[in-house]
């Protein structure tokens, strides 16, 4: 299964890719620049881990673009951020951030700093959903 990590900070990309590869996943990455959609179309990952706060373009803006593209909208997305604990990442908080009532909630949320066992467990859950579908 292929997981794509999109984060502007190279150190965090390196870290997450290493953890995922060490646990047997195929990986690819993006730095959150404007060409994200082309990268995703090219790589066709099974899961995307997407940072929220990035320069130039926020993760929410990228998420909106992916969801609006029929070919990519079924790829599960886990948002990752240190801005709030996972427990407080509610639908209300997401709506306020996205400023869009119609936008579907992302499949997962991962809190920074990353706890590796929790990350792997969440990733496994989301990929199981993909396999079952």
């Amino acid at each position, binding site marked *: 299964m292929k997981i794509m990590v999109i984060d502007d*900070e190279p*150190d*965090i990309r390196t*870290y997450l890719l*290493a953890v995922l590869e060490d646990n047997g996943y195929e990986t690819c990455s993006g730095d959150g620049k404007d060409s994200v959609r082309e990268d995703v179309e090219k790589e066709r990952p099974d899961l995307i881990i997407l940072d*929220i706060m990035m320069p130039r373009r926020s993760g*929410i803006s990228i998420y909106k673009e992916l969801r609006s593209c029929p070919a990519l909208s079924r790829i599960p997305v886990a948002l990752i951020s*240190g801005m709030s604990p996972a427990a407080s990442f509610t639908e209300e908080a997401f709506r306020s*951030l996205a400023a869009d009532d119609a936008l579907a909630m992302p499949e997962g949320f991962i809190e920074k*700093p990353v706890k590796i066992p929790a990350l792997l467990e969440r990733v496994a859950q989301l990929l199981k959903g993909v396999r079952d579908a």
Partner: protein
Amino acid sequence: MTTGRTGGGTIAKITRENIDRWIQENLFQAIPMAVAVIDQEYNLVYANNAFTRMFGAWRNKKCYTVYKSRESVCPDCKGKDAFFDGFARVNEEVGYNKNGRITHYIKHTVPIVNDDGDVPFLLEMVTDITETVHIRREHQLLFDQVPCNILVIDRDYRIVRTNRRCREMFGDIEGKFCYKAFRGEGQICDRCLARETFQDGRLHSGHSAVRGKDGKEVHMHVTYVPLSLEDGKMDLVMEMAVDVTQLMDLQTQLKIALTVMETMIAESLDGIITIDDKHDITIFNPAARALFNVQGRRRVEKAELEAMMPEGFLSRVETADTHVYLPDTAVRTLDGGSCPVRLAGIRLLVDERFLGMAFWVQDMRKYKQLEKEKLEAERLAAVGQTVAGLAHGIKNLITGLEGGLYMLNSGMKKGNVDRIGQGMEMLGRNIERVAAFVKEFLSFSKGRTIQAAPCDPRAIAEEVVAMYSPRARELGIELVHEAGEAIPQAPLDGAGIHECLTNLVGNAMDACVMSEDRQNCHVRVSTLERDGALVYQVVDDGCGMDYQVKQKVFTTFFTTKGLGGTGLGLLTTKKIVQEHGGHVEMESDKGKGSTFRIVLPRSRLPQAAGAQDAPEP
């Protein structure tokens, strides 16, 4: 009255026996009216001296020529009728006197009849009533045009005459009983002033409310005077009534306006003071008493008022063309204290005549306290956001450090030297970020009390632009300061505002650097005055921000510059601006650029040491 002697003529001694002869010879001339005899051809055949005095020469003239300056018989000639039927006539006519003036006269026409009934001559006796007619006309004109209602009432209270004005207001009421015509009553009113005049023959006046012909109530001031007073008896009373409805309406309106004004002044939450042209106090309302600590009903003297107001304020108001407004000043209370107020004063002029001055004094003690509390609350909120942002920033740093550790540990386990090196680099890089972060955060959290001093707001912006200019040239960015119109000095912490502008201009240049078209970027800094606020504006056409970035830009340690920023710049800016009582506004479009605006309302700026009254707006 005229006097004269009429001589005996041909009679030497007039006696009872010869008086008939005297009459035959002299009566014609002795009669005081004009007398003439005309024949059937309308020739004047005889006339007395009075006739000549009235109509001039008459011999060999026709009567119509002499009376009316006509060339032919009058169309309605009464003489013609008398010649025909032999009856005497009296009629009022208009002709011309010997001077050509219009003359009114009463003419008695007496036929001189033969035994056979033929009328060879007419005797005409003419009385001049020109003056009477003029007097009658003047009287009628006065009666109708006088600006009041006039009517005449008889002893039965029946209206026998009305003037035009009265008919316009009440319609045709002649012949009606006055109580019926004016009040619709069936009998004389309980208190009737006309009756009193009939009883005592004296003038009576009073107020009366009646209904006009349109049904509306009309208020009249009525005077009754006796008419036809003969031997203490009278049959008629004249009523003269002036319509005072409008006057009473105006009195009512004036009373309402006065009550409203008095109530508003008495109940006003703001102090209201007026003084007359000699500076004597005419109004000092309860709110002013409370504000200036004036006890009970104690009278405030003009010297005391001058001492209460800011120095020179009264004379400033007295000489100003418009109102004088001090939005942020202080007055002295009667017990020697000081009270922060908003103060306005204006000259009172009526038709260019100076009546005095009026002052409004708004107690700002509570407002100042609330403002202080609000600023404090804003500072506390900023601290709360800072703590939340701190957590976010630290989490990112920890993730970087954990990543470095993971790479180091997993590299060691796998014997992968490259991965160990990568981990070491990550650790080193993130430790450096921690150091920079801590340093900047310490500087931010340490803070300092802002030191406001009067300074030129434009000079600060010019300094910041000058400081960045070499770097801007290096990067190919056009950086300019648009000074605009002159701006008065303001109490600012110069170093603090300098730091804010340094952050905003630095960010704008970074946004240009991140822009795709970085070779064609501009940063414009402007300093301006708008709606009582000092405004610094930094506009760039760099990369701009999308919605989510904008949302977070002031509230967390959020940087869009990757490893190059700590996210503290804008937070520091916000803190300093808030300490000046202002706020930061932001507009940004992704790909088009951003505008950051520091808005500092002058009324909320910190007080500089030794500050005086705020300037007028």
